[in-house]
């Protein structure tokens, strides 16, 4: 007994499924459901399933209460007055009928799909071949286009403009330090190009001889590099020329560089 209900519940996919089954089984028209009869059957069925301790979805109970409500509305006397003529009277079943019609429609589509699935099983696919045999060294190509180029640059210009505005008002020291960093890099490049150990006059490092700022920044940069033991210097007499030479530590960067990750963002899409 209990078993039979268990089996049955699995078959009913929801309250509408059960209701449609009961209506069809009773050979009623969906357009003219004998509501009290069908409600009785539905409620009894749900009740017995509950007694059988079947874990019943709450939606089944919800529909039971809806059916009872429709039933009670059907029992209300219809008063045939001038104002309450037949075509103004709304059948309490109307909404339910619409829902059941819609549900039956998709149930029919479901069985059409089921047939198609059965039918399509007649043709067999074959599994994919082992593709590793055909996989070569990956081609790499850059995804480049003019709009993104322009956009990236415009974004940068915007940022730079804002930054410059801020800088124009304050943070002088930061600016100077940055310039020193760049100059250190230049000096490094300069010495990289000449034979190791060869000495050069300090003034050779100055790009604009008349610019005191340039001279002082270069001098500060040299001092910094000496402190880091990347350059050696010799001054043979007071106010004489300063001779500079690179040490083996020339390339040791204290300054943070941009990380390689920033340079290329590899991205894979097939």
């Amino acid at each position, binding site marked *: 007994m209990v078993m*039979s*209900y268990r*089996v*049955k519940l699995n*078959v009913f*996919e*929801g*309250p*509408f*499924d059960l209701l449609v089954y*009961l209506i069809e*089984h*009773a*050979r*009623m*028209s*969906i*357009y*003219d459901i004998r509501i009290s*009869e069908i409600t009785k*059957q539905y409620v*009894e*069925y749900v009740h*017995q399933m509950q007694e059988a301790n079947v874990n019943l*979805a709450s*939606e089944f109970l919800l*529909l039971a209460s809806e059916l009872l409500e429709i039933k009670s509305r059907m029992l209300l006397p219809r008063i045939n007055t001038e104002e309450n003529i037949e075509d103004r009277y709304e059948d309490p079943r109307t909404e339910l009928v619409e*829902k059941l*019609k*819609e*549900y*039956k*429609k*998709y*149930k*029919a*589509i*479901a*069985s*059409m*799909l*089921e047939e*198609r*699935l059965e*039918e*399509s*099983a*007649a*043709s*067999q*696919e*074959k*599994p*994919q*071949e082992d*593709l590793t045999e*055909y996989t070569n060294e990956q081609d790499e190509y850059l995804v480049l286009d003019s709009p993104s180029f322009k956009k990236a640059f415009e974004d940068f210009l915007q940022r730079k403009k804002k930054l410059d505005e801020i800088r124009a008002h304050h943070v002088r020291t930061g600016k100077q330090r940055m310039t020193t960093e760049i100059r250190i890099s230049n000096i490094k490049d300069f010495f990289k190009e000449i034979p190791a150990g060869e000495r050069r006059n300090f003034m050779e490092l100055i790009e604009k001889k008349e610019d005191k700022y340039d001279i002082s920044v270069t001098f500060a940069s040299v001092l910094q590099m000496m402190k880091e033991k990347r350059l050696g210097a010799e001054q043979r007499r007071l106010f004489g020329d300063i001779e500079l030479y690179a040490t083996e530590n020339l390339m040791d960067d204290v300054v943070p560089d941009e990380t390689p990750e920033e340079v290329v963002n590899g991205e894979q899409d097939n």
Partner: protein
Amino acid sequence: MANKTIKSAIESMMFVWGEPLNIKDVADIFDVDKKEIYECCKELQEEYEQDGRGIVIREVNKSFQFVTRKENREFIERLCTPVRRRRLSQSALETLAIVAYKQPVTKGEIEAIRGIRCDRVMEGLMDKNLIAQLGRTDTVGRPILYGTTDEFLKQFEFESLKDLPPIEDIEGVIFEDDEPTVIIDGVAGQISLEELKKDED
């Protein structure tokens, strides 16, 4: 490049690929218009069909795939037991039917039609890659919209969504017998619970 060369290459590629082969990918390889590839595929399809070959070409949403001829099913089964797809449950089929015909559709809309919650069923269909999330509606709560996938088209042998049979055809069949006039009121089912229970056995 000669049409014949391309067609031969497409055959090789379809064979190796197994899954439906996208004409766009093929067009990229030959650097030709994908319309041209589509035509090659259609020609091939016709050739295999005409010759009654044991392999035929199936179209799935502008992708093409070799499959065996249906009529040879029996012979294949005598050779080996083909891998069977697991059948879909009734609730999965109902839910899939609603998604297919009403897409893009929200879970709420599906549940309203079926009269029951569909979370598990929907998850199952997504696991099987038969339905997928399409995005969200602009309405309040921005519920997720669902639609069917190319895998759905493939498994049910629809070339595209346009191939779904018109809903009126299906409706006509169900509701023909349901006209109120046909019913002799009062005579129909006086079914008892006992009878229902008997049916179960």
